Structures are given as C-alpha cells and as structure tokens.
C-alpha cells in the first residue's frame, strides 16, 4: 500500500469520510416533501369539507330557526289577536251604551271570567265627556282573588301611555308591558283603543277602552322554546325592551339596544332595529347572557308589533360537526403519522444501500481497495450503481496492480543503471593526482554524466617512462549502449596503445576493431595524444573530436590544429594522420567533449566555444583542479538548472615548470 501511495497523486485520497451533516439526506427530503404535500392536501380537503358541512348546518339552522320563530310568533299572535277582539267589541258597545246601562257590567264581568288572560278592563272617558262636572271618569273591572271587582281609576289618566297613545294615534295600540304591583307584580300589557260617539261631522272621541292582559302565559310559551341545551327564545317590545327572557333581570329593565351598547355590539343594535321595524331575519349574533357566538332568528308579532327571537349558541349547533371534525382531524393525524413512518421506512429502504455504498466509497477513497462492498442485488438504479462501483473497484485494483508491477520493473532497471554508472565511472581514472611521483606533469579530469550512464570517455597512462598517452572521446548516443561502446573503446585504446606506436596507428587500429562488428552503427569521436614529458612534444591524432586548447604559460590560448580524421567505428580501413606540437614548461593542454560547448540554458542558448574560451582565459592562471571546477561552475551558472542532454567531460594536462 505504501507503494501505491507513493506513486498516486496525493489528492486522489480523500482522507475525511464524506459527511451528510452539511445537507439533508435523500430520505429526509423525500419524506419532508411528501409529508408537506400530503399535509397541504389534507388541510385543503379538511378546510373545504369543514366549510361545506358548516354551510349545510347553517342553512339547516336558518330554516329551522326561522320556522320556529315564525311559528311561535304566530302562536302568540293568535292569543293576542283573540284578546284584541274583546275591547274592540266593547268599544262598539260604548258608542251606544253608558256604564250605567243595565247589563253592561254583567257583560264586562262575563268577559273577564271567560278569558283567563284578561286581568282587567277599563272604559276611560275624555275630560268631561261622561259628565260635564266630572273631569275624570274611568270605571275599571279587574280580577281580585278570583272574583270580579270594580273601581274607578283615581288618578288623572289623560297623559298616561295607555290613554294618550291610542288617543293621539286615533287607533288601537298595544302599550308597553309593565309590572303591575297591584295585581301581584305580574307582567302585564294593555291593549287600548279609542271609542267615539256621533256620526259624520259630529263624530268625536269619547274615550278609550282598555284590556289588561297578564303575560304569564306568554312567558311560558316563549320559555318553552328550547334549542338544544342552552338555546332559547326571547321577546322584545316595540321599543326593544325585553318582555320575556331567561334572565329575568332583563325583563322590563333593559332593551336589546342597551345590551348592544353595553357589549359595544353594533350588529346586535342593527338586529334590534330590524326586529322593532317588524322584519324577520336570520343573523349571526352573540348570546346576550354568555357572550357565546351563535345565530339569531327573529320574527315579528303582527298584532302587537313586538318581536320574537330565537338564539342558537354556535358551539351547541356545531357540536356534532365539531365532534366529527375532531375525529376527522384525529384520524387525519393518525393517518399522517402512519404515512410518516411508511415514508421513512421506504425512504430508508431506498437510501440504505446508497448509504452503505457511500461508506464503502469513502473507505475506498481512503485507499482501502479491499473494502467489502455492500451486496446489493436489486435491479434498480441503485443496483446498477453498485455493480458499476464493483467494476470500478476491480478495474482500479487491476490498474494499481499493473502500476505496481511496472514501477517495480522500472525501479529494478534504474538500480541497474546506477550500477552501470558506477562501473563506468569505475573504469575511468578517478584518483587525482594520478601519478604523484611524476613531478613534471599535472593531470585533472572530470565527467558529469547527463543520464545515469554516459558515452563520454577519457584516459591517460604512461606507455613508457617518458610517454604519456592521453585520450578523450564521445560516443554517439547515450545510455547503456553508449556506455558499453565507450567501455569497449577505452579497452581497445588501452590494448592498442603499445609503446612505439604513433597516435595515427593506434586510432587506425582501434577504428578497425570498432568497425569490425558494429551492427548498431555506433561511432565515437576520439582525440588521442602522446606527450613526451621530457621534451614536451605532443604527437596527436584527432578522430572527429572537438579540438583541444593549448594554454601557453604566457596566457595565449590556441586550438590545436585538426588532423582531418573521422570519427571511429563507422568505416574500416580509415587512415589517420598525426600532428606535432610542443608544450613548454607551464603550458597546459585542455581537452573537452561537446557537452561543454553545447550545454544549454533555459532559453535554449548554447554555452559555445566562445563561452569556454572566455572561461579558460579568465581562469588560465589557476591550478588545474580549480580551472576545471571554475569552468564547470560557469556552465552550471549558465545552464541555471536546465537538465543537460549530454555528458560534460573535461581533461587538462599541465607541464610543470
């Protein structure tokens, strides 16, 4: 595994486990969206259902209540209407009769006896109409402990409602109810109508006939109306005053308008106005006692102009529907919860393999390719994803196995190359100064390979006591082949450079051997010189190599003349020619390969011969080692880290003074 990590880019490995904390999972979103949608649908349906059922109930209530109010009003009207007949008949009598008329009192008494509701009746005359000496005359018959009693109204009655209203209106009228203390504090109302005397122009008002009727029966009728548990009916007079009401404190004490004012309920006032205006209707209202929301249906009494209302508390009317709604909501919530769990379950079922897969992927991403993938056998998208994932894991594993093998092979080759390099370097002279006992010369050389194994070579050895053979060469191409060719070349030189032979002969012989069996057509440029350390004479031969420099003790730097020889290994039977040059004490000969002059920088410029010559010129007075390392420094400075394509080899030999 370590190997894998080494060779795969590090960003390939996600070290932290992928987390769901940042975003909600699919299961959550799925269940959330489904539940929200379901809730909205449920709420919408429920709202519609509620409104619709409510409307149905309301319509039904309106019908029932209106009917009930109307029916009760009619029932009361029937009694009041019958009551009205009595004083009407009496008023007709009074046009022709007087209270003194024989039998009139008997008739009146009879009326009282036969009509339970009637408490008393009066015949009140206009001032002085009965008698010129009597301003007030008003006989009154009434029930007293079951017997009929009679009296005369003692007070001046002309400005009393029961007298004045029918008088001023000129027609029969129901007077506002009142509590009659004399009759035992019972609720009474008076029906009064004028009677006249005379005909035509002469006809004028003579007085008022009244009946007082007890309203106890009215109270019974109205209070017998029950709507549910708390629904009730009430009756108001023409002025809106309560005539009957379950709350007896209100009766004759308070009007519907007073209640409206106290409650600050303007709609109740409007209902009241409709009621006393003789309209019937149905309206939303609040219960005057409890303040509970409800409905009110009302209908007028056509006889007295009073109005009957029936009140329904909404809670009671709607009790059934409320109960039903509660159940629907309860069932809805139950269903909702069930749905919730089912959705969660389904969503979990869908996402569990995904989650397992995610975890496995995270493990794999962490680098463990041997992680066990969840076994998903479904044939849906998740199953396909899992199978792709399987394939991916296997491919990845295979790929990494290949990569590991390749890498191992490459490593092996590279280590062998390093070994080859070491061997190559081993065959080149490495110890400086190489001949510490030869004080007349100094030698220094360096080889910087471009790759692990290079194709440059150099060598030097004494052929006899005075003759130093030295060479530098450059094999075409690089790598193992080049280095092998170089090794062969070096061995051949060593073998062929026998004492007494000239450089041209040595080169020719080396060329012959190289060319003899060279199927890969490799070649080597080679410079070979033999220095007579005693005389300073150098015999040299150049096989296509860069001409070396002579650095004279006086500072003059010159290139050696060429010998027009070709590179070795290309052709057999080549003939080489030698030249001579003499080094004086203090002179140096500098040899190099084209790796020096063809060193490149980042701009692809060459270090060039000119660069080399400048370097040599600047460094000419230094010791050999420093000179070479100085040139090397300059090359490195010039190249600025650009990897070099060719080996860089330098060899310098100095004749000591």
């Amino acid at each position, binding site marked *: 595994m370590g190997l894998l990590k080494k060779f795969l880019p590090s960003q390939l490995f996600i070290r932290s486990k992928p987390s769901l904390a940042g975003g909600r999972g699919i299961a959550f979103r799925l269940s959330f969206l489904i539940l929200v949608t379901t809730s909205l649908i449920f709420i919408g349906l429920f709202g519609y259902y509620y409104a619709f059922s409510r409307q149905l109930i309301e319509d039904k209530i309106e019908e029932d209540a209106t009917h009930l109010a109307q029916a009760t009003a009619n029932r009361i009207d029937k009694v009041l209407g019958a009551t009205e007949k009595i004083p009407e008949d009496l008023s007709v009598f009074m046009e022709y009769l007087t209270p003194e008329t024989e039998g009139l009192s008997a008739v009146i008494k009879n009326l009282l006896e036969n009509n339970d509701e009637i408490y008393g009746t009066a015949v009140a005359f206009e001032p002085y109409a009965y008698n010129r000496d009597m301003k007030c005359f008003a006989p009154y018959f009434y029930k007293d402990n079951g017997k009929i009693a009679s009296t005369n109204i003692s007070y001046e009655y002309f400005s009393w409602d029961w007298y*004045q209203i029918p008088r*001023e209106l000129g027609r029969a009228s129901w007077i506002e109810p009142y509590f009659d203390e004399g009759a035992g504090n019972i609720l009474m109302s008076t029906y009064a109508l004028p009677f006249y005397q005379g005909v035509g122009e002469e006809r004028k008002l003579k007085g008022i006939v009244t009946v007082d009727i007890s309203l106890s029966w009215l109270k019974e009728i109205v209070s017998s109306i029950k709507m549910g548990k708390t629904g009730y009916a009430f009756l108001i007079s023409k002025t809106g005053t309560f005539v009957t009401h379950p709350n007896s404190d209100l009766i004759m004490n308070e009007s519907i*308008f007073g209640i409206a004012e106290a409650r600050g309920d303007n709609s109740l006032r409007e209902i009241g106005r409709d009621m006393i205006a003789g309209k019937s209707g149905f309206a939303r209202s609040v219960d005057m006692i409890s303040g509970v929301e409800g409905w009110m249906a009302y209908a007028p009494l056509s006889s007295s102009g009073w109005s009957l209302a029936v009140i329904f508390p909404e809670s009671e009317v709607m009790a059934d529907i409320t109960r039903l709604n509660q159940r629907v909501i309860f069932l809805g919530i139950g269903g909702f919860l069930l749905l919730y769990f089912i959705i969660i379950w389904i969503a979990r079922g869908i996402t569990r393999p995904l989650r397992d897969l995610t975890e496995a992927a995270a493990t794999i991403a962490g680098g463990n390719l041997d992680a066990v993938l969840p076994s998903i056998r479904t044939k849906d998208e998740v199953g396909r994803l899992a199978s792709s994932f399987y394939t991916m894991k296997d491919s990845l594993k295979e790929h990494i196995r290949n990569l590991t093998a390749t890498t191992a092979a490459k490593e092996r080759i590279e280590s062998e190359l390093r070994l080859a390099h070491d061997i190559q370097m081993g065959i080149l002279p490495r110890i400086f100064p190489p001949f510490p006992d030869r004080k007349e010369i100094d030698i220094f050389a360096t080889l910087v390979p471009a790759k692990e194994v290079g194709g440059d070579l150099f060598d030097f050895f004494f052929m006899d006591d005075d003759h130093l053979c030295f060479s530098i060469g450059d094999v075409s191409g690089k790598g193992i082949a080049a280095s092998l060719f170089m090794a062969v070349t070096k061995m051949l030189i060593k073998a062929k450079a026998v004492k007494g032979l000239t450089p041209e002969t040595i080169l020719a012989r080396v060329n012959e051997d190289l060319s003899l069996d060279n199927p890969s057509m490799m070649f080597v440029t080679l410079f070979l010189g033999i220095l007579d350390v005693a005389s300073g004479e150098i015999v040299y031969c150049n096989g296509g190599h860069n001409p070396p420099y002579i650095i004279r003790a006086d500072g003059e730097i010159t290139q050696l003349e060429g010998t027009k020889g070709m590179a070795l290994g290309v052709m057999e039977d080549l003939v080489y020619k030698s030249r001579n040059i003499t080094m004086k004490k203090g002179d140096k000969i500098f040899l190099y390969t084209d790796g020096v002059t063809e060193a490149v920088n980042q701009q692809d410029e060459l270090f060039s011969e000119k660069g080399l010559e400048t370097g040599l010129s600047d460094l000419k007075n230094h010791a050999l080692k420093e000179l070479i390392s100085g040139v090397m420094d300059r090359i490195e400075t010039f190249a600025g880290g650009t990897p070099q394509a060719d080996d860089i080899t330098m060899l310098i030999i100095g004749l000591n003074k």
Partner: protein
Amino acid sequence: MRYELIKRPLTYCLALLFILLFISPAMPADLKKAVFIPHWVPQAQFAGYYVAYEMGIYRKHGIDLAIIPGGSETPPLDLLKDERAQFGSLWLSTAIEARAQGVELVNVAQIMQKSGLILVAKKSGGIKEPKDMNGKKVGIWDSFKVQPKAFFNKYNLDVKTITQSYSVNLFLSGGVDVASAMWYNEYHTILNSGLNPDELVTFFFYEHDLNFPEDGIYVMKNTLDQDPELVRAFVAASLEGWRYAFDHPEEALDIIIKNLTKEHMPASRVHQRWMLNRMKDLIPLTEAGISGKLKEDDYYRVGKGLKDNGLIEEIPPFAAFYQE
C-alpha cells in the same frame, strides 16, 4: 388536647376581630341626624349624594344622613315644608315658584349649571330647525313647560302641545312629532329604543338663550338659621360625593344600580352610565372642584320666564333666595 391548644387562640382572634369590626369605626358622638330627599328616583342624576352616602362622606362631615328615595309620591317640597327632610334636591324653577308663593326655601348650592331639558324630533318627520315645528304636535311635561313655551314664543311657533307622560312611548309610537326629553335620561331611552342619533334632531334650550339650570340643593330658611354648620357640611360632603362619582364612575354606577334595584326600578347600567356622563356635561368640574354657585343672571332668567308665564307674580330677591 393539642387541637384545643391550637383552636383556642384562633377563637380569641376571631372574637377580637369581631370586636374590632364593630367597635372600631367608632361613631363620633356628635353626628347630626339629617334627611335628604332627591326629587326623583335614585338614578345617576343623584349619583353624588348616593356616592357620598355610601362612601361615608357625610359621616366624615359629621352628618348621620338618611336618604328618602325620591319619586312622584314624595315631592321634596312637601317633605321640606313638613320638616320630614332637611335637605332636598329641586329644580331651580320649582324652587323659585315655591319661594314666590311664600315657601321659605333657600338655595344653598346650584349643582347643575346647564339645563338638561331638550326637545327632540325625528328627522323623518321633516323637522330640522325650530320653525319646522309649526303646526306640529309637541309633547310637553306639565311641570316643565316654561322653557318650551319661551322657546315657541321666541321662534313665533304655533304648535299643538300635548301633555307628555314620563315615558317616551308616545313619541316613539308617533303620537307626537316633538317630545320633551332630559338630555341625560329620556334622550338615551329613545336611543335605546332603536333610534339612531343621526335619525334625531335635538334642541338644547341652553343653546337658545333659555338656560334654566336645574338641580340644586335646598333647605328651609329655618334649618339654615338653626344650624348653618350642618348645611355647610352637607353641601361640602355632597360636592365631594359628586367629585368622587366623576372620578370613579364604575364604583358610582355600582352604587346607583344597587339603589335602583332596591327601589325595584329598571336598573340599566348603560343607561345610568350615559346619565352619569351627561351629568359631567351639566355639572362643570374644574380644578377647584364643583362650584355649586348659583349665578345671578341664571336666576333672573328663570325668574323672568316664570313671571312671563304667569306662574309667579314677582321674582323673589336673589339675596334671600341664594345663600352661598
């Protein structure tokens, strides 16, 4: 045994509490007994007196007062003359009339500064200004006809007057076109019989130079001469009661409702609230309190009205009638 130990101190405590309750509001020995008779039922029109009574303000001022519930059967004038009551509430015009007839009544405080009497008509009857009343039936209270008559004279109206009872039913049923009403009483009854203010038109007498301030406190000259301190205390306590009633309307209404219920009178809180609020309109409350002062020009205006109507022959001198 243990229980007794605990119980006993409790019993002592209770006993002590009882003693404190009954003994501690120790009656000052020198409380003067007096009787007050308002000229009508115990409604918010007399809130000040009932509140002062209930709140112990009269006691605070050294009076052990009794209030006789007013009504048609107990005319204050009679009670004052008979010395069944020392203090009475009366209309200014009633009092001037009585004084002119020789009853030695003295006004010791004029509570109302404005007349609450109005004429009211339905707009639907076509009445918008005084001249529209010409030829119409107008309900007039027998005892309060001076202002309406002066009003008709002033606008040169020929109306058919009908004696009006204490109810407004004649007006509501259409028996009269215009009705007399007290701003603080019948007007609200009309509203609470289903007529809206915008359906009504009102004529305030004080807006027609006919301001006859009404309720005032009266005593017989005798009473005043014998015990001026008592009179002063009664007036001060009554004014304090009024102020308390205005400052604590709901408390005042509780007291009014209680008294009305006691008299088996219709006790409508909204009606009494309206009345109490209108009392504020008619009884000006200043920083210094309620003045209770009778203005001389008000006095002579009322006197002249009475004289013009032949109800009195001479206007009694103001100085003798009013004692501040």
